[in-house]
Protein backbone atom coordinates (compact mmCIF):
# COMPACT_ATOMS: atom_id res chain seq x y z
CA UNK A 1 0.00 0.00 0.00
CA UNK A 2 2.77 2.41 0.92
CA UNK A 3 4.34 1.91 -2.47
CA UNK A 4 1.10 1.89 -4.48
CA UNK A 5 0.12 5.23 -2.94
CA UNK A 6 3.54 6.83 -3.20
CA UNK A 7 4.06 5.62 -6.77
CA UNK A 8 0.43 6.30 -7.69
CA UNK A 9 0.55 9.91 -6.47
CA UNK A 10 3.55 10.50 -8.68
CA UNK A 11 2.52 8.44 -11.70
CA UNK A 12 -0.98 9.88 -11.90
CA UNK A 13 -0.02 13.30 -10.60
CA UNK A 14 -2.70 13.34 -7.91
CA UNK A 15 -3.21 16.48 -5.88
CA UNK A 16 -2.80 15.84 -2.16
CA UNK A 17 -2.27 17.82 1.00
CA UNK A 18 -0.62 15.25 3.23
CA UNK A 19 2.58 13.33 3.66
CA UNK A 20 2.68 9.59 3.08
CA UNK A 21 4.39 7.74 5.90
CA UNK A 22 4.75 4.27 7.24
CA UNK A 23 3.84 3.32 10.77
CA UNK A 24 7.23 1.72 11.63
CA UNK A 25 8.72 5.17 11.74
CA UNK A 26 6.03 6.24 14.17
CA UNK A 27 6.25 3.15 16.35
CA UNK A 28 9.91 4.01 16.78
CA UNK A 29 9.16 7.68 17.39
CA UNK A 30 6.47 6.96 19.98
CA UNK A 31 8.78 4.57 21.81
CA UNK A 32 11.63 7.12 21.79
CA UNK A 33 9.30 9.85 23.04
CA UNK A 34 8.14 7.61 25.87
CA UNK A 35 4.55 7.51 24.62
CA UNK A 36 4.67 3.75 24.18
CA UNK A 37 6.14 2.31 27.32
CA UNK A 38 7.33 -0.97 25.87
CA UNK A 39 9.39 -3.31 27.94
CA UNK A 40 11.20 -6.52 27.07
CA UNK A 41 11.23 -7.96 30.61
CA UNK A 42 8.70 -10.62 29.63
CA UNK A 43 11.44 -12.19 27.51
CA UNK A 44 14.32 -11.79 29.97
CA UNK A 45 14.17 -15.38 31.17
CA UNK A 46 12.30 -16.91 28.26
CA UNK A 47 14.99 -15.74 25.82
CA UNK A 48 12.80 -16.43 22.79
CA UNK A 49 14.66 -15.37 19.67
CA UNK A 50 13.21 -13.28 16.88
CA UNK A 51 14.22 -12.32 13.39
CA UNK A 52 12.46 -9.82 11.16
CA UNK A 53 11.55 -9.66 7.49
CA UNK A 54 12.20 -6.35 5.72
CA UNK A 55 9.09 -5.72 3.62
CA UNK A 56 10.31 -4.72 0.15
CA UNK A 57 7.50 -2.23 -0.42
CA UNK A 58 8.39 -0.30 2.70
CA UNK A 59 12.16 -0.68 2.95
CA UNK A 60 13.84 -1.04 -0.44
CA UNK A 61 11.04 0.43 -2.53
CA UNK A 62 10.00 3.37 -0.37
CA UNK A 63 12.05 4.60 2.60
CA UNK A 64 15.28 2.61 2.47
CA UNK A 65 17.62 1.70 5.30
CA UNK A 66 16.49 4.41 7.75
CA UNK A 67 13.09 2.73 8.15
CA UNK A 68 14.79 -0.67 8.38
CA UNK A 69 16.69 0.78 11.35
CA UNK A 70 13.45 2.03 12.92
CA UNK A 71 11.97 -1.42 12.44
CA UNK A 72 14.93 -3.00 14.23
CA UNK A 73 14.81 -0.42 17.01
CA UNK A 74 11.17 -1.31 17.63
CA UNK A 75 11.80 -5.05 17.51
CA UNK A 76 14.76 -4.84 19.89
CA UNK A 77 12.80 -2.62 22.25
CA UNK A 78 9.99 -5.14 22.53
CA UNK A 79 11.83 -8.49 22.51
CA UNK A 80 15.15 -7.44 24.04
CA UNK A 81 18.28 -6.59 22.07
CA UNK A 82 19.93 -9.91 22.94
CA UNK A 83 16.93 -11.79 21.59
CA UNK A 84 17.02 -10.32 18.11
CA UNK A 85 18.94 -12.10 15.35
CA UNK A 86 19.16 -10.43 11.97
CA UNK A 87 18.92 -12.45 8.79
CA UNK A 88 21.51 -12.18 6.05
CA UNK A 89 21.37 -10.27 3.78
CA UNK A 90 19.17 -7.68 5.42
CA UNK A 91 17.66 -4.19 5.23
CA UNK A 92 17.54 -2.86 1.64
CA UNK A 93 19.56 -5.85 0.53
CA UNK A 94 17.15 -8.42 1.94
CA UNK A 95 15.34 -10.89 -0.31
CA UNK A 96 11.68 -10.66 -1.14
CA UNK A 97 9.70 -13.47 0.51
CA UNK A 98 7.69 -14.15 -2.63
CA UNK A 99 4.36 -12.93 -1.29
CA UNK A 100 4.51 -9.60 -3.09
CA UNK A 101 3.60 -8.38 -6.54
CA UNK A 102 0.36 -10.34 -6.51
CA UNK A 103 2.22 -13.67 -6.45
CA UNK A 104 -0.06 -14.95 -3.65
CA UNK A 105 -3.07 -14.52 -5.92
CA UNK A 106 -1.49 -15.41 -9.23
CA UNK A 107 -2.19 -19.14 -9.15
CA UNK A 108 1.48 -20.16 -9.53
CA UNK A 109 1.67 -21.78 -6.15
CA UNK A 110 4.46 -24.26 -6.84
CA UNK A 111 6.69 -21.52 -8.22
CA UNK A 112 5.81 -19.23 -5.35
CA UNK A 113 6.92 -21.78 -2.79
CA UNK A 114 10.09 -22.40 -4.76
CA UNK A 115 10.70 -18.65 -4.83
CA UNK A 116 10.34 -18.61 -1.06
CA UNK A 117 12.83 -21.41 -0.45
CA UNK A 118 15.58 -18.81 -0.12
CA UNK A 119 13.60 -16.87 2.50
CA UNK A 120 12.90 -20.02 4.48
CA UNK A 121 16.59 -20.93 4.46
CA UNK A 122 17.54 -17.41 5.52
CA UNK A 123 15.16 -17.57 8.47
CA UNK A 124 16.29 -21.04 9.52
CA UNK A 125 19.93 -19.96 9.33
CA UNK A 126 19.28 -17.34 12.04
CA UNK A 127 18.13 -20.04 14.44
CA UNK A 128 15.36 -17.70 15.58
CA UNK A 129 12.19 -19.14 17.09
CA UNK A 130 9.95 -16.57 15.41
CA UNK A 131 9.86 -14.49 12.27
CA UNK A 132 8.23 -11.07 12.53
CA UNK A 133 6.42 -9.90 9.41
CA UNK A 134 5.20 -6.34 9.26
CA UNK A 135 3.20 -6.76 6.08
CA UNK A 136 0.23 -9.02 5.30
CA UNK A 137 1.60 -10.46 2.10
CA UNK A 138 4.88 -11.30 3.83
CA UNK A 139 2.96 -12.72 6.76
CA UNK A 140 0.81 -15.02 4.63
CA UNK A 141 3.71 -16.18 2.48
CA UNK A 142 6.24 -16.79 5.27
CA UNK A 143 3.58 -18.53 7.34
CA UNK A 144 3.00 -20.89 4.42
CA UNK A 145 6.75 -21.34 3.87
CA UNK A 146 7.23 -22.36 7.50
CA UNK A 147 4.56 -25.04 7.09
CA UNK A 148 5.55 -26.15 3.61
CA UNK A 149 9.22 -26.64 4.45
CA UNK A 150 8.41 -28.08 7.87
CA UNK A 151 10.43 -25.35 9.56
CA UNK A 152 7.91 -24.69 12.30
CA UNK A 153 8.70 -21.08 13.20
CA UNK A 154 5.55 -19.02 13.90
CA UNK A 155 5.16 -15.77 11.99
CA UNK A 156 3.85 -12.79 13.93
CA UNK A 157 2.70 -9.26 13.28
CA UNK A 158 4.70 -6.48 14.88
CA UNK A 159 1.65 -5.01 16.64
CA UNK A 160 1.12 -8.30 18.47
CA UNK A 161 4.57 -8.09 20.04
CA UNK A 162 4.30 -4.39 20.80
CA UNK A 163 1.09 -5.04 22.74
CA UNK A 164 2.62 -8.09 24.42
CA UNK A 165 5.50 -5.93 25.61
CA UNK A 166 3.07 -3.25 26.80
CA UNK A 167 1.23 -5.88 28.82
CA UNK A 168 -2.04 -5.25 27.01
CA UNK A 169 -2.32 -8.25 24.72
CA UNK A 170 -5.52 -10.12 25.49
CA UNK A 171 -6.12 -13.86 25.10
CA UNK A 172 -8.03 -13.47 21.83
CA UNK A 173 -5.35 -11.41 20.13
CA UNK A 174 -2.79 -14.23 20.02
CA UNK A 175 -3.76 -16.10 16.88
CA UNK A 176 -0.23 -16.15 15.51
CA UNK A 177 1.75 -16.66 18.67
CA UNK A 178 3.21 -20.13 19.25
CA UNK A 179 2.30 -22.22 22.28
CA UNK A 180 5.32 -20.86 24.13
CA UNK A 181 3.75 -17.38 24.17
CA UNK A 182 0.03 -18.09 24.35
CA UNK A 183 0.05 -17.80 28.13
CA UNK A 184 2.72 -15.17 28.64
CA UNK A 185 1.78 -11.76 30.04
CA UNK A 186 -1.92 -12.21 29.25
CA UNK A 187 -4.11 -9.14 29.66
CA UNK A 188 -7.58 -9.94 31.03
CA UNK A 189 -7.18 -13.73 30.77
CA UNK A 190 -10.78 -14.14 31.95
CA UNK A 191 -12.02 -12.88 28.58
CA UNK A 192 -10.63 -15.87 26.67
CA UNK A 193 -13.06 -17.17 24.09
Amino acid sequence: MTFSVLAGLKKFNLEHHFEVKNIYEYYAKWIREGKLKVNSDWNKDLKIKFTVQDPCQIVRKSYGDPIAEDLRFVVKSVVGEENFIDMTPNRSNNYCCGGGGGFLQSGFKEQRLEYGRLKDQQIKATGADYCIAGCHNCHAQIHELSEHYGSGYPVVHLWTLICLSLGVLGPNEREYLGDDLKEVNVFHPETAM
Partner: protein
Amino acid sequence: MTDRVVKLGGKKNSTFMDKVKKILPEGGNLNLCLTCGACSSGCPATGLDGMDPRKFLRMAALGMDEEIAKSDWPWMCTMCQRCIYVCPMKIDIPQLVYNARGLRPREERPRGILGSCDMALRNKSTSAMGTSPEDFAFVVGDVLEEYREAQPEFADMEAPIDKQGAEFFLNQNSREPVTEPDEMVPLWKILHLAGVDWTYGSSGWGGENYCMFLADNDSWEQITRTTVDQANQLGVKTFLNTE
Protein backbone atom coordinates in the same frame (compact mmCIF):
# COMPACT_ATOMS: atom_id res chain seq x y z
CA MET B 1 12.72 -22.56 -24.70
CA THR B 2 16.49 -22.55 -24.47
CA ASP B 3 16.79 -25.63 -26.70
CA ARG B 4 16.28 -23.91 -30.00
CA VAL B 5 18.54 -21.49 -31.79
CA VAL B 6 17.46 -17.89 -31.50
CA LYS B 7 17.42 -16.23 -34.90
CA LEU B 8 17.61 -12.49 -35.07
CA GLY B 9 16.10 -10.55 -37.95
CA GLY B 10 18.32 -8.18 -39.92
CA LYS B 11 16.23 -5.14 -39.24
CA LYS B 12 15.09 -4.23 -35.79
CA ASN B 13 11.43 -3.34 -35.49
CA SER B 14 10.07 -0.98 -32.91
CA THR B 15 9.93 -3.28 -29.99
CA PHE B 16 8.33 -3.71 -26.61
CA MET B 17 11.55 -2.51 -25.00
CA ASP B 18 11.56 0.71 -27.04
CA LYS B 19 8.05 1.42 -25.87
CA VAL B 20 8.93 0.88 -22.23
CA LYS B 21 12.04 3.04 -22.56
CA LYS B 22 9.87 5.91 -23.76
CA ILE B 23 7.70 5.90 -20.65
CA LEU B 24 10.48 5.61 -18.07
CA PRO B 25 12.68 8.40 -16.77
CA GLU B 26 16.12 8.01 -18.38
CA GLY B 27 14.58 5.16 -20.35
CA GLY B 28 14.90 3.05 -17.23
CA ASN B 29 18.55 2.62 -18.26
CA LEU B 30 17.31 -0.41 -20.15
CA ASN B 31 20.04 -0.25 -22.79
CA LEU B 32 22.89 0.06 -20.29
CA CYS B 33 23.11 -3.61 -19.31
CA LEU B 34 26.66 -4.91 -18.86
CA THR B 35 25.31 -8.48 -18.68
CA CYS B 36 27.18 -8.97 -15.40
CA GLY B 37 24.37 -11.06 -13.91
CA ALA B 38 24.31 -9.43 -10.46
CA CYS B 39 20.54 -9.13 -10.89
CA SER B 40 20.04 -12.83 -11.55
CA SER B 41 22.42 -14.13 -8.94
CA GLY B 42 20.49 -12.40 -6.18
CA CYS B 43 16.99 -12.93 -7.52
CA PRO B 44 14.74 -15.54 -5.87
CA ALA B 45 12.79 -15.81 -9.15
CA THR B 46 15.87 -16.94 -11.05
CA GLY B 47 15.22 -20.34 -12.57
CA LEU B 48 11.46 -20.19 -12.35
CA ASP B 49 9.87 -20.88 -15.74
CA GLY B 50 13.38 -21.17 -17.21
CA MET B 51 13.90 -17.44 -16.80
CA ASP B 52 15.93 -14.91 -14.86
CA PRO B 53 16.09 -11.10 -14.89
CA ARG B 54 19.17 -10.84 -17.10
CA LYS B 55 17.75 -13.25 -19.62
CA PHE B 56 14.45 -11.40 -19.58
CA LEU B 57 16.18 -8.11 -20.28
CA ARG B 58 18.33 -9.67 -23.03
CA MET B 59 15.22 -11.10 -24.67
CA ALA B 60 13.65 -7.67 -24.63
CA ALA B 61 16.83 -6.11 -26.02
CA LEU B 62 16.83 -8.69 -28.81
CA GLY B 63 13.23 -7.85 -29.67
CA MET B 64 11.82 -11.25 -28.69
CA ASP B 65 8.51 -9.63 -27.94
CA GLU B 66 6.32 -12.61 -28.69
CA GLU B 67 8.21 -14.85 -26.27
CA ILE B 68 7.99 -12.15 -23.63
CA ALA B 69 4.26 -11.76 -24.08
CA LYS B 70 3.80 -15.53 -23.81
CA SER B 71 5.98 -15.98 -20.72
CA ASP B 72 4.33 -16.42 -17.31
CA TRP B 73 7.53 -15.27 -15.62
CA PRO B 74 6.43 -11.63 -15.21
CA TRP B 75 3.82 -13.02 -12.79
CA MET B 76 6.50 -14.90 -10.82
CA CYS B 77 8.70 -11.83 -10.43
CA THR B 78 7.39 -9.81 -7.49
CA MET B 79 8.93 -6.56 -8.76
CA CYS B 80 10.75 -6.35 -5.44
CA GLN B 81 13.48 -4.16 -7.00
CA ARG B 82 16.41 -6.01 -5.52
CA CYS B 83 17.79 -6.33 -9.05
CA ILE B 84 17.87 -2.53 -9.35
CA TYR B 85 19.43 -2.25 -5.92
CA VAL B 86 22.40 -4.44 -6.88
CA CYS B 87 22.67 -3.33 -10.51
CA PRO B 88 25.75 -1.19 -11.28
CA MET B 89 23.74 0.59 -13.96
CA LYS B 90 20.48 0.83 -11.99
CA ILE B 91 18.45 -0.78 -14.74
CA ASP B 92 14.73 -0.78 -14.10
CA ILE B 93 13.93 -4.40 -14.89
CA PRO B 94 10.82 -4.37 -12.64
CA GLN B 95 9.24 -1.73 -14.87
CA LEU B 96 9.96 -3.91 -17.86
CA VAL B 97 8.22 -6.73 -16.02
CA TYR B 98 5.31 -4.48 -15.06
CA ASN B 99 4.77 -3.50 -18.66
CA ALA B 100 5.18 -7.10 -19.81
CA ARG B 101 2.24 -7.97 -17.54
CA GLY B 102 0.24 -5.40 -19.46
CA LEU B 103 0.95 -7.05 -22.81
CA ARG B 104 -1.85 -9.54 -22.19
CA PRO B 105 -5.50 -8.58 -22.52
CA ARG B 106 -6.81 -7.78 -19.05
CA GLU B 107 -9.15 -10.78 -18.91
CA GLU B 108 -6.27 -13.17 -19.63
CA ARG B 109 -4.21 -12.06 -16.64
CA PRO B 110 -4.15 -14.34 -13.56
CA ARG B 111 -7.68 -14.75 -12.30
CA GLY B 112 -6.86 -14.30 -8.61
CA ILE B 113 -5.25 -10.91 -9.14
CA LEU B 114 -7.95 -9.87 -11.59
CA GLY B 115 -10.67 -10.89 -9.15
CA SER B 116 -9.09 -8.95 -6.27
CA CYS B 117 -8.77 -5.84 -8.43
CA ASP B 118 -12.38 -6.11 -9.61
CA MET B 119 -13.55 -6.55 -6.02
CA ALA B 120 -11.78 -3.34 -5.06
CA LEU B 121 -13.57 -1.51 -7.89
CA ARG B 122 -16.99 -2.65 -6.67
CA ASN B 123 -17.46 0.05 -4.07
CA LYS B 124 -15.72 2.95 -2.35
CA SER B 125 -13.94 0.79 0.22
CA THR B 126 -11.15 -0.13 -2.21
CA SER B 127 -11.06 -3.48 -0.42
CA ALA B 128 -9.73 -6.44 -2.38
CA MET B 129 -12.37 -8.53 -0.63
CA GLY B 130 -15.22 -6.34 -1.83
CA THR B 131 -16.35 -5.43 1.70
CA SER B 132 -18.73 -2.48 1.70
CA PRO B 133 -18.15 0.69 3.76
CA GLU B 134 -21.26 -0.22 5.81
CA ASP B 135 -19.96 -3.70 6.66
CA PHE B 136 -16.59 -2.27 7.60
CA ALA B 137 -18.17 0.33 9.89
CA PHE B 138 -20.33 -2.36 11.48
CA VAL B 139 -17.39 -4.69 12.23
CA VAL B 140 -15.22 -1.89 13.58
CA GLY B 141 -18.01 -0.62 15.84
CA ASP B 142 -18.89 -4.08 17.03
CA VAL B 143 -15.35 -5.13 17.89
CA LEU B 144 -14.60 -1.79 19.55
CA GLU B 145 -17.63 -2.04 21.79
CA GLU B 146 -16.77 -5.58 22.77
CA TYR B 147 -13.24 -4.66 23.80
CA ARG B 148 -14.24 -1.48 25.61
CA GLU B 149 -16.46 -3.59 27.82
CA ALA B 150 -14.20 -6.58 28.27
CA GLN B 151 -11.06 -4.57 28.97
CA PRO B 152 -12.11 -1.50 31.01
CA GLU B 153 -8.63 0.06 30.76
CA PHE B 154 -9.60 0.68 27.14
CA ALA B 155 -13.12 1.93 27.84
CA ASP B 156 -12.39 5.19 26.03
CA MET B 157 -10.42 3.70 23.14
CA GLU B 158 -11.62 4.91 19.76
CA ALA B 159 -11.59 3.65 16.19
CA PRO B 160 -13.03 6.59 14.29
CA ILE B 161 -14.21 6.55 10.70
CA ASP B 162 -14.22 9.86 8.80
CA LYS B 163 -13.06 11.99 11.71
CA GLN B 164 -12.63 15.44 10.24
CA GLY B 165 -9.22 17.04 10.82
CA ALA B 166 -7.59 13.98 12.36
CA GLU B 167 -3.80 14.01 12.16
CA PHE B 168 -3.43 10.54 10.65
CA PHE B 169 -5.42 8.72 7.98
CA LEU B 170 -5.01 5.00 8.44
CA ASN B 171 -5.81 2.17 6.11
CA GLN B 172 -6.61 -1.37 7.05
CA ASN B 173 -5.87 -4.61 5.25
CA SER B 174 -9.27 -6.26 4.64
CA ARG B 175 -8.06 -9.55 6.00
CA GLU B 176 -8.67 -8.32 9.55
CA PRO B 177 -12.19 -6.93 9.43
CA VAL B 178 -13.33 -9.78 7.20
CA THR B 179 -11.63 -12.88 8.60
CA GLU B 180 -9.93 -12.10 11.92
CA PRO B 181 -11.41 -8.93 13.46
CA ASP B 182 -9.63 -9.41 16.81
CA GLU B 183 -6.38 -8.70 14.99
CA MET B 184 -7.43 -5.06 14.48
CA VAL B 185 -7.37 -4.48 18.21
CA PRO B 186 -3.61 -4.47 18.98
CA LEU B 187 -3.11 -1.62 16.51
CA TRP B 188 -5.97 0.37 18.03
CA LYS B 189 -4.49 -0.15 21.47
CA ILE B 190 -1.10 1.11 20.36
CA LEU B 191 -2.65 4.23 18.83
CA HIS B 192 -4.75 4.78 21.94
CA LEU B 193 -1.83 4.44 24.36
CA ALA B 194 0.35 6.72 22.23
CA GLY B 195 -2.44 9.31 22.28
CA VAL B 196 -2.67 9.43 18.51
CA ASP B 197 -5.38 11.41 16.72
CA TRP B 198 -6.30 9.14 13.82
CA THR B 199 -9.13 8.03 11.57
CA TYR B 200 -10.09 5.45 8.99
CA GLY B 201 -11.99 6.62 5.91
CA SER B 202 -15.37 5.19 4.96
CA SER B 203 -13.98 5.51 1.45
CA GLY B 204 -10.59 4.10 0.70
CA TRP B 205 -9.97 2.30 3.97
CA GLY B 206 -8.82 -0.88 2.18
CA GLY B 207 -5.11 -1.31 2.48
CA GLU B 208 -4.52 -3.41 -0.63
CA ASN B 209 -4.06 -2.54 -4.26
CA TYR B 210 -4.18 -5.55 -6.54
CA CYS B 211 -4.96 -3.36 -9.52
CA MET B 212 -1.35 -2.22 -9.46
CA PHE B 213 -0.20 -5.84 -9.47
CA LEU B 214 -2.60 -6.48 -12.35
CA ALA B 215 -0.76 -3.77 -14.31
CA ASP B 216 -4.11 -2.08 -14.84
CA ASN B 217 -3.14 1.59 -14.71
CA ASP B 218 -6.65 3.03 -14.93
CA SER B 219 -7.91 0.93 -12.04
CA TRP B 220 -4.76 1.54 -9.99
CA GLU B 221 -5.38 5.26 -10.46
CA GLN B 222 -9.04 4.94 -9.53
CA ILE B 223 -8.23 3.08 -6.31
CA THR B 224 -5.51 5.50 -5.31
CA ARG B 225 -7.67 8.50 -6.21
CA THR B 226 -10.53 7.22 -4.04
CA THR B 227 -8.36 6.91 -0.98
CA VAL B 228 -6.43 10.12 -1.64
CA ASP B 229 -9.65 12.12 -2.16
CA GLN B 230 -10.98 10.87 1.15
CA ALA B 231 -7.77 11.76 2.99
CA ASN B 232 -7.80 15.22 1.36
CA GLN B 233 -11.40 15.77 2.28
CA LEU B 234 -10.81 14.86 5.90
CA GLY B 235 -7.91 17.30 5.98
CA VAL B 236 -5.42 14.87 7.51
CA LYS B 237 -1.76 15.77 7.83
CA THR B 238 -0.34 12.30 7.33
CA PHE B 239 -1.43 9.33 5.31
CA LEU B 240 -0.18 6.51 7.48
CA ASN B 241 0.29 3.06 6.03
CA THR B 242 0.47 0.05 8.25
CA GLU B 243 2.22 -1.84 5.47
